[in-house]
């Protein structure tokens, strides 16, 4: 009986420990620390144009937010040097300003290969990650990033 009790207590203690560890691994929301957000861009130039405005508004309202933009599929188009929007404007100025404000731009390598876009044709502010979808999942699951698709 006593042995069973000890075994049960040990088990309960172990569960308690692992629960606490899990809570500490992914930073608890709303308990202090920066809000982190990953923006998914995968639709093309028009979405990117809207996103540049969203990102500016986001940082104006919440300057402490850590934002990572992950671009894959047609979402990488705006990161290619010389890309222009419907009004003929280039993206370099917007990407530069956001980058200087701490926004990171990550482009999917699988996309670059599939669409034959040379890495050295991307804006200097862009970094390349192996796979965009994996990066988005990882940022949410492992680093506690909130997901946003403009």
């Amino acid at each position, binding site marked *: 009986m006593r042995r069973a009790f000890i075994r049960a207590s040990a088990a309960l203690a172990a569960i308690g420990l692992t629960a606490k560890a899990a809570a500490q691994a992914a930073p608890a929301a709303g308990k202090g620390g920066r809000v982190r957000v990953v923006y998914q861009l995968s639709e093309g130039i028009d979405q990117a144009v809207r996103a540049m405005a969203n990102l500016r508004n986001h940082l104006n309202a919440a300057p402490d937010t850590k934002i990572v933009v992950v671009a894959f599929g047609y979402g990488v188009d705006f990161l290619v040097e010389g890309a222009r929007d419907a009004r003929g*404007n*280039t993206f*370099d*100025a*917007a990407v*530069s*300003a956001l980058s200087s404000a701490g926004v990171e731009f990550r482009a999917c390598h699988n996309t670059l290969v599939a669409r034959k876009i040379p890495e050295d044709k991307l804006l200097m502010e862009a970094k390349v990650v192996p796979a965009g979808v994996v990066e988005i999942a990882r940022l949410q699951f492992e680093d506690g990033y909130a997901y946003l698709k403009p």
Partner: protein
Amino acid sequence: MNSKRREVLRVTAVLSLMAATGLIGEAQAAEWNKAAFDGKSVSDVIKALGGSGTEKSNAIVFNAPDIAENGAVVPVAVTSNLPDTEQIAILVEKNPNTLAADFTIPAGTEPFVSTRVKMGQTSIVYAAVKAGGKWYVASKEIKVTLGGCGG
């Protein structure tokens, strides 16, 4: 004395000594043309850059947006088709200090440069080129919706 200040003093001392003994040219020791960067008008700047005036030229290709939504980051690119181009400068007329940047083109380097500058307000922007010892300009007005110099 903190280590950074000590380092600056050390570097300055070494540079002065090197300049004095002729180890490096005067030009290298005084690398930044303060007079040009203090200039408050196009003519001030050109004078400080050693020119006596400028001549308009169609051989200078000046790429810049008509409207800059963010005055803090305005992309500009200059290609000079003038022979013997040795220097390219970017001037923003209405900025507190007119000269934004100055580029030296050594032999073997293309007469081209691309960079991003701040504009405080809508202004005429000049691409000045020194070719064959003479200064030429091309210009365009860039409208700014949100000024970018601060203050």
